[in-house]
């Protein structure tokens, strides 16, 4: 880690060329404060007396090397660093996302989770799922356009390859892609130059066994590559009533990444993944989820203050359930994006971009005696286009104004305009105040417009061809500061005004029911987190969220299923986390989290503890013993969800 020079604008060198790197690069532009804190923690010894061999044994990164983001981004951003992930021992994305204080994570089965930010966790009875989040892996949007929600069992990144995860609660701003309503999760993997050599990671435990192998190296003079293969088996859990759910889950996955520095000003990255997951089902064959993706990105530095990025990806998803008459869907997505960033004068940084996503789906209806799920049309090709422009204006040395506007053209509701305005004020190097007002929409999906549900032979519910966008106007403010050389804090407040939220309405004849936009309301809350280095070898962190929802039905709405259909969210949640370097080779991680009860349907709150003891046996081998949810035999996280039981596992990681 470099010690930044005391120039107040430490990020000036981070030119536009870099700003265009990834939409998430907002948080990357300035970590100057936290890196400076890092530089103050180590204690030089008399290194001159050490041999070369011993020099290689000096531990230079301490637990305080946790880059708490003190970025300039005027938003509620929490960054999960590579080191956090390694210390926690979490090996799949949803468990890693539990590290972010500004997300709600509910595990419902061995492979599936509900994840949301700032409420709206959904309701199974109302067929409402968390659908207001944008999730991206290296610039590839992975939420499903069929219903705007996530299949978390389709997303896996080898934890060793994750560089960082930026979690933004609230509308991300103009430069984010579609569906960034309540939050953005941006997963960024390491350049393949950083994963040279071999890696073998094996886990055995009562709930999960997995193995991963990876090898990386150089391809000629200017390119690096890595290839990996991984298999995970998660054992069945008990259902909400305590009976075995017979829902064990397997997912083998392979993938690669190649990074080419084709000239000093040009980089090209190509990556791809393929997996074939299978979930056991009681009394029948497995449900399968297959996914394949390939992405290519070209980044070109035009000048010190200007850069260009062109990205394309193709993604294929195929989910099917032969137990259920072969129902499921195939989804093919082709996405193209262009971004250009340039400085305008000394005080303005302009970023604009265009994107187009074509997706084709082919849904096999579920036809069963009791209830059927059909679609009209069941097969379709649609287009989602967007354009955005953002201008960052330095009003003076301390104040920056960001103006953004995004236009999105979706196949159902046409063009939506999403403006946002952000203001940040940095009165000193160690503190920043920000405020933002933004508008975001969740655009209609096939599930909102085209679905037909039958009970027996009677049509029970249909999509609504005039379904409107769900709208959010968000007001946010926040404060981030370095309160001592070794402590950082972030506090964000939000006040969200929603309109046209999805509800179930009666058609003129009563039945069938029809999707409508009959709910409105407001939510507000606070998100706070901080971390502090108690000493060179011990760091403590804490996070806390509180939220309130005031939702109601608009005049004329049916009010069916009540406002609880929007979500079943805890009013409070929080954690305390401790990371220790016990010695050069032993580390201890502890995380105590508490989640308030879910109000309706009622699910008791819980407090749980995760621990991990890591032992660096030698340069090549690390062994660790971890336990998750250690305080109770089981707890439940979501209505009707599985009982999540205590987990214990042993991990070995070998570098070769």
């Amino acid at each position, binding site marked *: *880690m*470099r*010690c930044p*020079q*005391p120039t107040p604008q430490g990020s000036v*060198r981070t030119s536009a060329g870099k700003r265009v790197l990834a939409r998430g690069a907002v948080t990357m532009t300035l970590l100057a404060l936290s890196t*400076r804190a*890092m*530089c103050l*923690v*180590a204690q*030089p010894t008399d*290194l*001159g007396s050490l*041999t*070369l061999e011993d*020099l*290689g*044994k*000096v*531990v*230079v990164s301490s637990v305080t090397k946790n880059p708490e983001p003190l970025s300039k981004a005027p938003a509620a951003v929490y960054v999960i660093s590579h080191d956090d992930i390694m210390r926690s021992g979490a090996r799949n994305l949803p468990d890693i996302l539990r590290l972010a204080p500004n997300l709600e994570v509910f595990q419902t089965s061995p492979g599936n989770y509900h994840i949301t930010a700032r409420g709206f966790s959904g309701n199974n009875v109302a067929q409402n799922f968390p659908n207001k989040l944008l999730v991206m892996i290296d610039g590839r949007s992975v939420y499903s356009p069929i219903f705007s929600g996530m299949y978390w069992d389709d997303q896996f990144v080898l934890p060793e390859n994750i560089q960082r995860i930026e979690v933004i609660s609230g509308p991300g701003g103009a430069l984010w892609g579609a569906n960034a309503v309540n939050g953005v999760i941006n997963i960024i993997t390491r350049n393949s*130059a950083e994963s*040279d*050599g071999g890696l073998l990671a094996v886990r055995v435990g009562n709930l999960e066994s997995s193995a991963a192998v990876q090898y990386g190296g*150089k391809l000629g*003079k*200017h390119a690096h590559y890595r290839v990996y293969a991984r298999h995970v088996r998660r054992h069945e859990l008990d259902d909400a009533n305590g009976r075995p759910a017979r829902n064990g889950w397997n997912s083998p996955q392979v993938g690669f990444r190649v990074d080419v520095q084709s000239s*000093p000003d040009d980089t090209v990255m190509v990556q791809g993944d393929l997996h074939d997951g299978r979930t056991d089902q009681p009394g029948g064959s497995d449900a399968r989820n297959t996914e394949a993706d390939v992405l290519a990105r070209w980044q070109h530095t035009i000048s010190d203050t200007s850069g260009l990025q062109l990205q394309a990806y193709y993604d294929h998803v195929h989910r099917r359930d032969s137990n259920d008459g072969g129902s499921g869907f195939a989804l093919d997505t082709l996405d193209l994006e262009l971004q250009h960033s340039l400085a305008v004068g000394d005080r303005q940084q302009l970023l604009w971009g265009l994107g187009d996503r074509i997706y084709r789906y082919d849904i096999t209806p579920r036809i069963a005696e009791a209830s059927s799920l059909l679609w009209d049309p069941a097969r379709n090709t649609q287009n989602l286009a967007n354009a955005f422009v953002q201008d960052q204006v330095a009003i003076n040395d301390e104040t920056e104004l960001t103006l953004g506007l995004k236009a999105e053209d979706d196949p159902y509701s046409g063009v939506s305009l999403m403006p946002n305005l952000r*203001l940040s004020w940095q009165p*000193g190097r*160690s503190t920043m*105040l920000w*405020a933002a*007002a933004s508008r975001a929409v969740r655009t209609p999906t096939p599930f909102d417009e085209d679905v037909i549900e039958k009970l027996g032979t009677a049509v029970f519910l249909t999509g609504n061809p005039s379904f409107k966008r769900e709208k959010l106007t968000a*007001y946010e*403010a*926040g*404060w981030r*500061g*370095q*309160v*001592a*050389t070794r*402590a950082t*804090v972030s*506090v964000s*407040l939000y*006040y969200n005004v929603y309109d046209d939220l999805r509800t179930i309405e009666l058609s003129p004849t009563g039945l069938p029911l029809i999707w409508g936009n009959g709910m409105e309301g407001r939510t507000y809350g606070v998100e*706070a*987190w*901080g971390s*502090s280095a*108690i000493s060179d070898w011990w760091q*403590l962190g*804490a996070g*806390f969220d509180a939220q309130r929802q005031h939702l109601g039905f608009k005049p004329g709405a049916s009010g069916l299923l009540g406002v609880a259909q929007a979500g079943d969210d805890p009013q409070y949640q929080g954690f305390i986390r401790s990371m220790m370097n016990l010695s050069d080779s032993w580390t201890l991680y502890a995380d105590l989290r508490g989640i308030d009860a879910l109000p309706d349907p009622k699910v008791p709150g819980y407090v749980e503890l995760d621990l991990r003891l890591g032992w*660096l046996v030698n*340069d090549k081998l*690390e062994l660790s013993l971890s336990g998750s949810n250690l305080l109770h035999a089981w707890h439940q996280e979501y209505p009707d969800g599985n009982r999540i039981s205590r987990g214990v596992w042993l991990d070995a990681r070998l570098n070769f």
Partner: protein
Amino acid sequence: MPPRSRRTRVRARIAGLLARLGVRTPSCLFALLLACASCEASPQPAPHPQPAVSLEYAVKATYLYKLAPFVNWPPATFESPQQPFRICVAGDASFDAYLQQAVAGRSLGTHPFEVHRLETLTPDSQCQIVFISRLASQTVQEALEAVDGKPVLTVVDSTEPHADGGIVKFVIDRGRVRFVIDTGAAARNHITISSKLLNLALAVREAS
């Protein structure tokens, strides 16, 4: 376009939120950091933060001169026994301070170590070792090309973007500073590296 009064109200609302924030945050913050004993320290940064405490930099600086005995430069490198051994820092000014401190009073045989900081690495820089980091005026590749074929041990830092092509590359491996050696690049610069150093390297790249 919303009427002006409404915009003003929104502005006032934001301003109100900010004002409330300013009043309320200190108490929240200290509640959060109950256990933090060192919190009372003022966050005022020193005007010139002393970089002399970064262990990572100190270790890298120590490596730089400790590598020298295991590297063979061409015989004509030194004109006289008293000629200083030049270690150059191309770029990073704060690293320069560490290196000055690390080599103070030390020498390689009869050649006292001398540290030079360069803004730009040129073919006539006359360095035996050059550490390339945070160069403002050149890319790493341009710096390396400047001394290509010259008897210079090039050292790059993996924290640098596109830090490839140097003879020695520092990498952080599980919190420790280690290095990778490219013997092909060494041969191009007419430098040989002892097997002891190669054995200590995390990886050795042969000529490609």
